């Protein structure tokens, strides 16, 4: 089994602060801030986010085989119960961006408890702030642009449709290698 963080306390703190910065500033591309070597199927940033936020209280859905090295690594280091049903997941991970489904199939929370919803991590081929996706909303001063390589327009359009359900929604973190960018449910997307 590959090892996790060098220091649970300080590495997870550093990663958390970077994830918080990303979530508070949608579209901003942030480095994960520490070093980590997760199993091959996982990008470094995915591994770091999972180790930072998951534990036995967070049901976890993943598009990998539960017997795969990556899935066992997450389970070993976090204790998070792996589950098959997306609707019950607190966290979910897509490693294969070609097979992205409707984000509305994950847990969007309820009108009384919109917080009880899935945080979805999606691995991409790369990202920059030059793309055709225009983002506005809380955390963004005026507007922000984001290009997510490998993510199909159809998926983003399905995400756009979810905005109508606010405060229900799915909060997303896109990752590539060491970097991440968040698109929480408050962010309005336009494809120019």
């Amino acid at each position, binding site marked *: 089994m590959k090892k996790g963080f060098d220091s*649970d*306390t*300080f590495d*997870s*703190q*550093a990663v*958390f*602060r970077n*994830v*918080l*910065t990303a*979530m*508070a*500033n949608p579209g901003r591309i942030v480095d994960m801030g520490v070093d980590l070597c997760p199993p091959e199927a996982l990008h470094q940033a995915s591994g770091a986010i999972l180790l*930072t*936020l*998951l*534990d036995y*209280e*967070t049901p976890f859905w993943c598009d990998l085989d539960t017997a795969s090295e990556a899935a066992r690594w997450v389970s070993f280091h976090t204790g998070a119960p792996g589950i098959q049903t997306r609707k019950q997941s*607190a966290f979910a991970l897509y490693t294969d961006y070609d097979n992205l489904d409707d984000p509305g199939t994950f847990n969007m929370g309820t*009108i*009384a408890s*919109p*917080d009880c*919803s899935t*945080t979805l991590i999606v691995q991409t081929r790369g990202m920059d702030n030059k793309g055709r996706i225009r983002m506005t909303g*809380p*955390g*963004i*001063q005026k507007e922000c642009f984001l290009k997510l390589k490998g993510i199909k327009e159809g998926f983003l359009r399905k995400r756009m449709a979810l905005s109508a359900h*606010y*405060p229900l*929604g799915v*909060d997303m973190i896109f990752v590539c290698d060491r970097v991440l960018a968040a698109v*929480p*449910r*408050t962010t309005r997307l336009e494809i120019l």
Partner: protein
Amino acid sequence: MSHQYNFAYLDEQTKKMIRRTMLKAVAIPGFQVPFGGREMPLPYGWGTGGIQLTASLLGRDDTLKVIDQGSDDTVNAVSIKDFFRKTADVAITESTRAATIIQTRHRIPEIPLSEGQIMVYQVPIPEPLQFIEPRRPEAEKMHAFVEYGAMYVKLYEDIARHGRIAMSFDYPVHVNGRYIMSPSPNPKFDNPKLHMSPALHLFGAGREKRIYAVPPFTEVVSLDFDDYPFELERWKGACALCGSKKSFLDEILTDDQGTRMFICSDTEFCRRAREKEAS
């Protein structure tokens, strides 16, 4: 019995739970997210919510400022700083600009906040509807279905009776056009500082076990009516120490005949103004 406490006191498992809660709070601005708040070695009502947030945020490179009533040196601010100095050995500052995290009770600094900074508020009663509807399940329904009529009726009754909205602190705000939120018991003077602020604002209510947030650059509007707009406290005089006419002033009684003077509530702001004057 010796007992080794973790960095910043809280165990990693608790920090994880609080961190997850913070992220959801940021994703749903103004919504009070319930969390499994823990007992802290400081009493409920004395900042346990803020302390739990700060403990879950802090890293070794952070610089922490703690204020109470705008002052760096009031007893509870001193006590909280002492707690984090002991448990996390972080750098402590009185400088708003130098701080990465500012934990506060009842004030937002007069010196403007900047991007990347995190404000942590100690919240006694997170529910803005508490005095209209003390029953939590009912209040939660009102938030869920945006049934805020009772709040506006209360404001309207104030106007009918007093000719003005009768709330002077903990003045409710509307966040991102969706949730009504308590800004914590800041004087309403500080409410405009939340609107489109470049900093991240996190609110922690330890006893009531709720966390909520205002992300940077988020619309925060104090409740009012078109013909009775939100208005700020103002003083005719200026701070007796630095001469500021822009800051929130505290009243100091100087004798038993009712003589009083006014000085800045924000001690750092006041000191800097005097230093500038002197140079």
